[in-house]
């Protein structure tokens, strides 16, 4: 390239080739190098985080077999038993409650905002999701302590115990303190609701208008059209939204920590206190220095969170790009 350029400069007319040409290609190359290395650095960050956690957690896995950590129910760091089953079960239960409540409601709301509202109504409803999405987790926690915990204690738990709890012991607890899996699930469901709603709405708005018009022309009702846009054309986007909501619920720390009760055992009912992996890490950072292997146990918990989030995201990405043949990137 530059050889050609020099020969051109010598043989033809110097005036044709501006002097700044060299300077600009040089700039371009430096820009390429610098920007590419920053883009690689983003990947490097994730690799570095994984590496650090694996290095630290590896120590614990050398001492105890993986099964003893994942399935062990005894969490007594002072005696050297690190069974994390209560935390895994607590995290999964809290996330499950949140997802069961939030996902249907959020998808319905997203469809309503995208398909049913006129621009003016939408302008009124849009701040609802924007405001909710912007609230800090700790504010949700405060709200949970002030509103949701008493609600669970005085209303939801007694009603559930009196009705469905007769059949399902898992939903019956007449002496709930309110600080429970249920309260954490409710708080989390409000936290992930705006995320899923906003993405669903955006995805549906991107569906081509012709698709809707074709369906309307065949005599479909608005809901039937929405079914096509949401569950056929918009499905990849909605799945991505649900996965993001799941990641958020799975790893949320402070808001859950404030309302879940923090009792390290497998909860007998939904209205009992529990403990989550993230809460475990957050609550014990002060005392972990004194006990051997304690820090490694906490890093194992962090590694578990990381592994679940990575596998969920990569799994969805593979599913969306390979199975559905829809480009994940563009």
């Amino acid at each position, binding site marked *: 390239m530059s050889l050609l350029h020099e020969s051109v400069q010598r043989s033809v007319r110097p005036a044709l080739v501006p002097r700044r040409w060299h300077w600009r290609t040089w700039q371009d190359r430096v820009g390429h190098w610098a920007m590419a290395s920053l*883009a690689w650095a983003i990947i490097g960050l994730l690799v570095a985080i994984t590496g650090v956690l694996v290095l630290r957690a590896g120590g614990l896995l050398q001492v105890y077999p993986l099964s003893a950590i994942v399935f062990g129910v005894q969490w007594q760091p002072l005696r050297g038993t690190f069974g994390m089953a209560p935390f895994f079960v607590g995290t999964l239960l809290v996330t499950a409650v949140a997802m069961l409540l939030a996902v249907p409601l959020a998808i319905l709301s997203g469809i309503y905002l995208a398909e049913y509202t006129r621009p003016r109504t939408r302008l009124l409803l849009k701040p609802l999701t924007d405001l909710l999405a912007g609230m800090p987790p*700790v504010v949700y926690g405060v709200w949970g302590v002030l509103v949701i915990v008493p609600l669970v204690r005085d209303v939801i738990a007694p009603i559930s115990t009196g009705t469905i709890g007769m059949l399902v012991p898992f939903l019956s607890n007449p002496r709930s303190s309110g600080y429970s899996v249920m309260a954490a699930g409710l708080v989390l469901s409000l936290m992930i609701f705006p995320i899923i709603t906003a993405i669903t709405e955006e995805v549906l708005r991107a569906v081509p208008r012709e698709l809707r018009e074709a369906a309307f022309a065949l005599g479909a009702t608005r809901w039937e059209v929405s079914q096509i846009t949401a569950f056929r054309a918009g499905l990849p986007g909605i799945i991505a939204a649900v996965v993001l909501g799941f990641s958020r619920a799975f790893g949320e720390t402070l808001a859950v920590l404030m309302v879940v009760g923090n009792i390290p055992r497998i909860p007998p009912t939904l209205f009992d206190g529990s403990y989550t992996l993230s809460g475990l890490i957050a609550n014990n950072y002060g005392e972990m220095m004194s006990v051997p292997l304690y820090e490694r146990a906490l890093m194992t918990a962090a590694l578990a969170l990381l592994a679940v989030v990575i596998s969920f995201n990569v799994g969805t990405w593979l599913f969306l790009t390979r199975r559905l043949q829809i480009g994940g990137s563009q």
Partner: protein
Amino acid sequence: MKRNTRRHHYARRRYVERLMIGLMRGALGLAALALASLLLVILVRGVNALSWAMLTETPAADFYLGGGGGILNAIVGSLALALGAILCASLIAVPGVLYMHTYGKGTRHVAIVRLTLDVLWGMPSIVFGATILTVLLWLGLRTSLLAGILALTLVVLPILARTFDEVVRMVPTDLTQATLALGTTRLELARMLLRQSMPGLMAALFLAFERAIGDGAAVLFTAGYTNTLPRSLLDPVASLPLAIFFQLGTPFPAVQDRAYAAALILTVLVLVFGMFGYLALHKLGRHVIR
């Protein structure tokens, strides 16, 4: 007979339509109710304990037992942490995203960067905090403003990058091709993209700032907590989410009330920056070529 089934069919479809509209409105109504109760509770409980001293004084020695003082340390600390974090994050995110739309457009590398950003977006912030803490322990350092900024940078980076990515994607293809047709290098194309997406970048920065200010889990291990204002990057620093968390954890009602006031301050800060972001997108966006 046939007419009857047809009428039944129409009636059923109309019924489903009405039912679904009802369900959708119910879902939105429920969310609106929850938001209203959240804002109302924070406002009512917060206003009672709010005072001028809360905003302008650092805590006295017996603050967490109900003594005097305010949470200026946490307000200043949170602003410093968030500002540092979005500065660091934008230094990586802005060139990185421009790379994805110029030199690397359409390559496999870029697809993997996007996937990485999505993974990072979903990552619990406590994981970032724990990782930075581990590195601190290796290096033998204490908790500090700098470490807090680094942890928050990891939290904010994917938010900033992915939001900015979407904004740059909105730049019309015609404009890109017209630019290249003038004989520009791809670096100059990147400059055009940056200028064109400036309002969107501002909005993304405000969104990231809002997240950084509200995230407590990442700074829990890394920034520490003090009652004084930060003097240097290597001092520990207080933050609003942790101030709320710790005050709510005390058994004294007077201190808990101040946690509500701190929550109100945090909410107002977040709403104000959210508003700035909205304004940036809609007021500055007038001069963007569409």
